[in-house]
């Protein structure tokens, strides 16, 4: 299958830089799979699972926020956070999930800002735990 150059970068460093056959990312409009020779494209990323395929092998990761762009065949995933499934510390993720759920039980005493933050935390924790389970 035809490959294309894929780059995944986050503020914590470059996660991936190389050839790929397909990449699936969670955009704000749903999951999108990009293959080689895609038209110039731009979308913002939501939260969810990202998949990269190469030589019949698939790597999964938890991808949160940012954007994906295709410019003349070059694909760039600029994510706020990106973690490979095998690198997610499942126990820690579970703990974070429990903590986020716990925090949301006091929702009537929270300010709007706090609620937004807590919900975002819960969403992130859910994404990470669900992907950690998949591997």
């Amino acid at each position, binding site marked *: 299958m035809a490959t294309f150059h894929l780059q995944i970068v*986050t*503020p*914590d460093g*470059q996660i991936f830089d190389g050839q790929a056959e397909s990449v699936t990312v969670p955009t704000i409009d749903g999951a999108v799979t990009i293959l080689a020779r895609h*038209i110039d*494209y731009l*979308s913002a990323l939501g939260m969810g699972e990202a998949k990269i395929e190469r030589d019949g092998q698939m790597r999964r990761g938890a991808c949160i926020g940012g954007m994906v762009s295709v410019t003349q065949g070059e694909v760039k995933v600029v994510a*706020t956070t990106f973690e490979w499934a095998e690198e997610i510390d499942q126990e820690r993720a579970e703990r974070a999930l429990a903590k986020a759920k716990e925090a949301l039980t006091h929702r009537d005493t929270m300010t709007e800002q706090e609620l937004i933050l807590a919900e975002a935390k819960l969403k992130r924790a859910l994404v990470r735990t669900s992907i950690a389970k998949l591997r």
Partner: protein
Amino acid sequence: MAGVSMKDIKIRIRSMESTKQITKAMEMVATSQLRHAQEKVTRSRPYFETLYETVTEIAATNKGYSSEYFTQRQVKQVCYVVIAGDRGLAGGYNHNILKLVAQELAGKQAQVLPIGKKALEYCHQHDIPIVTDAYAQAADVSVGDCFTMAKDLAKAFRQGTFDEVYVGYTNFASILVQTPCTMKLLPLAQSLKAKSSSGQGLRLYEPGVETVLQAIIPEYLGGLIYGALCESVASELGARRTAMDAATKNAEEMIADLNLKYNRARQGAITQEITEIVAGAEE
């Protein structure tokens, strides 16, 4: 005994030595922290470069659509995000960035969003209106904080509270060279790289240009602010290391000088004593 007494010199030497110890320790702390900060800068650079390139290219190629983020408005109120240090003793680091910002602020209706205690203090001293003082500790500002800040700034820009948004930070060129600079965040410069390679701007935006930009711009701002913060933190440590290194060297020089004086005074005292003894024996 000539001039200062031996005891006085001894006291001064001792005080110089303890100063030297402090500056030496600070230098060593800065050096070890600098290594981490430098790693962080190099690790995160690809992210900002990609982010910056992508967004400027969108701004350059996208001619058919005009978002409020691209529109140049008449400038009434500007906002400066100013990143300085929490502590002094870092050579000219704080002074340089604050001086540059002060120059740019002159004659403008501006508000400042200070990051770092020194930036906040500066605003208080000069009666510059501040947006928020929530980020007074530069060391405690996380990626999340940068994104929250960016969201608020983007919102304020859309609502017309600010017509331009800048960030003032210190660029970490190398361990020895740090240059203060400012960068325009909003509105996005549309003319930049106007003759981009692809040119036609045939780009598919999903689900739509407006939605995509709405989601991306705060990300972009947050990313750039975080990048500027990383650079500034590394610069501060670099500047502190250099300053403390110089201070240690100066202390060493002064100690050597004082030692010489001390020995001379001692010699003088001995000579005088001998002279007295000899004079006594001759009588």
